């Protein structure tokens, strides 16, 4: 790899040293340096040349349409070139907090933005290719440590090297910083706040030192090396232990082992930790204390233990842990119903279980059941197992009642339906009857009219007959009648 030969300061003559090669010694004024730019993307296989090509392509790509798509994971949607988001401020405090960051430059927000923007741009020019730290930091002006931290942060959040296949696990990677980023941004807030040491900016492990005077947190190493502000003495610092559970949760198996061991060995912590396996004695004790009934076992020894528990093991997780623990003593009861009930109670939760128990009690007092002795014994008892017992029994009665009620109601519904059906039918019948009446009336009328017409017809016929008769009589008779009758000749022969 090419390295610049540095000029030493012991040069007495203030003239530039002669170039050791036969390069054209003309000096290029800065204006034509731009022309030089276009010559550089000549074919060269070194990564540095690729970086130059990338730089040129970046300036060119800005003008044309992007021909590829850059994917950014959804949890990094806050990223934008224009500003620094709160997530970044929170997760990279060294750039934004503290007196070092207040002065801008290699430490401040501008530096962070410069590193971040350069890295992201550099990656996005060739998004299918993995951007290595070495390549990236060679193009960044700044100290390696800060560049590496920003690089790791961006890579973790998928703004760099996202979707590019990883060539195996990085050995030297600072794994401590890895779980911090996505976890600490989850709203559940389950993880404890990782303490960041001011001196070396790494996550403090088991114990750290705080100073009230200056509100500084440093890790053990920095404390030992006195890597803090000159104005502070070692006496100003207090040791704070971080809880182990935050880093490694106890699985059910381990908890089970622990309880078995406790029952077997009593308070011999050595044997207990052996039985549990991968937990130290301190861990076992701490864990047992955290279990809700652990205190019963520990009793007065609690005072001797000086663990500072982090409040951030929230009630939620604690309840979860205690739920799991409650399962274990009951799970090996021979009675399968008890196991079922315990399971149900664990799922449902203590509040719901007590409420259901009380409802069941009141329901049972109304309904006469034969198996109420265990239910009675649990009245007033806040213990969970028994309340779950009654919960289990009364559930059956409730179900029966409920089904009976349902049936009755079904019948009612059916009757109602029938009733309404018959009503509808009646109404329709009435309608039809009314119609029939009307039609009958109309018929009568029609009959009357017909008869009238008949009568008229008959009259007409009679008239006609009379006329014909008069015509057929002798003319002498008709002559007299014709003068009386119609003068018109009506009939034809």
């Amino acid at each position, binding site marked *: 790899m090419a390295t*610049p*030969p540095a000029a030493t300061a012991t*040069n007495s003559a203030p003239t530039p040293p002669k170039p050791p*090669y036969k390069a054209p010694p003309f000096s290029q004024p800065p204006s034509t340096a731009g022309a030089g*730019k276009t*010559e550089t993307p000549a074919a060269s296989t070194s990564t540095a040349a690729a970086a*130059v090509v990338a730089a040129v392509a970046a300036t060119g790509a800005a003008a044309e349409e992007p021909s590829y798509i850059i994917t950014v994971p959804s949890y990094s949607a806050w990223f934008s070139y224009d500003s620094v988001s709160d997530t970044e401020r929170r997760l990279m405090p060294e750039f934004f907090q503290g007196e070092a960051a207040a002065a801008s430059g290699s430490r401040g927000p501008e530096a962070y933005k410069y590193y971040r923007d350069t890295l992201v741009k550099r990656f996005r020019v060739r998004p299918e290719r993995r951007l290595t*730290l070495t390549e990236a930091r060679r193009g960044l002006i700044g100290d390696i440590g800060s560049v*590496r931290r920003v690089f790791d942060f961006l890579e973790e959040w998928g703004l760099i090297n996202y979707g590019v296949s990883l060539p195996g696990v990085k050995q*030297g990677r600072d794994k401590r910083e890895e779980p911090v980023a996505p976890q600490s941004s989850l709203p559940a807030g389950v993880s404890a706040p990782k303490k960041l040491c001011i001196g070396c900016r790494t996550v403090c492990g088991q114990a750290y030192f705080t100073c009230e005077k200056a509100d500084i947190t440093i890790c053990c190493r920095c404390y030992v090396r006195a890597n803090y502000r000159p104005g502070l003495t070692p006496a100003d610092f207090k040791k704070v232990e971080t809880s182990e559970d935050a880093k490694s949760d106890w699985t059910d198996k381990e908890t089970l082992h622990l309880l078995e061991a406790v029952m077997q060995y009593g308070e011999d912590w050595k044997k207990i930790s052996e039985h549990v396996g991968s937990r130290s004695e301190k861990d076992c004790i701490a864990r047992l204390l955290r279990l809700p009934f652990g205190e019963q076992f520990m009793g007065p020894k609690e005072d001797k233990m000086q663990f500072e528990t982090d409040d951030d093991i929230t009630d939620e997780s604690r309840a979860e842990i205690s739920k799991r623990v409650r399962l274990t003593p009951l799970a090996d009861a021979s009675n399968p119903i008890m196991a079922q009930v315990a399971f149900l109670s664990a799922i449902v939760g203590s509040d719901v279980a007590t409420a259901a128990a009380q409802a069941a009690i009141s329901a049972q007092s109304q309904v006469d059941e034969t198996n109420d002795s265990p239910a009675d014994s649990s009245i007033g008892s806040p213990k969970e197992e028994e309340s779950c017992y009654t919960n289990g029994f009364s559930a059956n009665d409730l179900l029966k009642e409920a089904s009976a009620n349902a049936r009755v109601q079904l019948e009612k519904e059916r009757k109602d339906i029938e009733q309404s059906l018959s009503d509808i039918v009646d109404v329709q019948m009435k309608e039809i009857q009314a119609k029939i009446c009307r039609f009958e009336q109309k018929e009568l009328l029609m009959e009357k009219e017909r008869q009238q017409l008949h009568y008229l017809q008959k009259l007409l016929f009679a008239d006609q007959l009379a006329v014909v008769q008069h015509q057929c009589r002798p003319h002498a008779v008709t002559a007299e009648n014709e003068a009386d009758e119609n003068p018109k000749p009506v009939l034809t022969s």
Partner: protein
Amino acid sequence: MKTVSLSAPTRSSTVKFRMPTRDNLVPIRVDVEVDGQRYRDAFTWNPRDPDSEIISFAKRTAKDLKLPASFVPQMLQSIQGQLAEFRSYEGQEMQIKEKIMPLKIDLRVNNTLVRDQFLWDIGNLDSDPEEFARTLCDDLNITDPEVGPAIAVSIREQLYEIASQSVSAMREAKVSKKRRAPEFASNSKAMNNAVDMFKYFGSKGSVIRKRKEWYLYAPVVDVVPNEEVVVVDTTEGA
């Protein structure tokens, strides 16, 4: 460029050793050769980073550059040695006079040559070589992003040299108190370069540089075509 401070020339203060820049960063140069493969690099390191960082950095670099693992111990040794040397100076005192020293840049990074000379106030503990390097690259339109860090490292190396000489001068002065040491400090080799500001800012001088000296202080950037790069590599690399 940083502005030149114009306070009285006799003022000088002794400070704990540190880089006379705003950020106390150490320039590190690594040159390791294993089985015919050579790794040369220069970067800036924060001495307050824990030692575990050095190891992880060395491993990561070897991995990124696809170097065999045998490089790592030598790299480690080199880096740790330089850091140890830096730390060995740390407890001691150095004398910061407001001397304005000329610094030189003469380096070649891939295809780009940079030659420059400028005055730097080593008494200004707020100076920032990184910012200078960034500005230089931006102003001269240097496209290769690797030039910037090289310039910054070069400046830091020169400043480190000056600071360490100042420390050793102070030590000598303390040891040889009989001989009225403070004058010696100003006569040491390194300080000969310091520009005597009286000449410029006294009654007869002017702040504006003389035209005939312009060429000395103008930065020069050459872009070298690839064939010459190969030539230079072979002449340098041996």
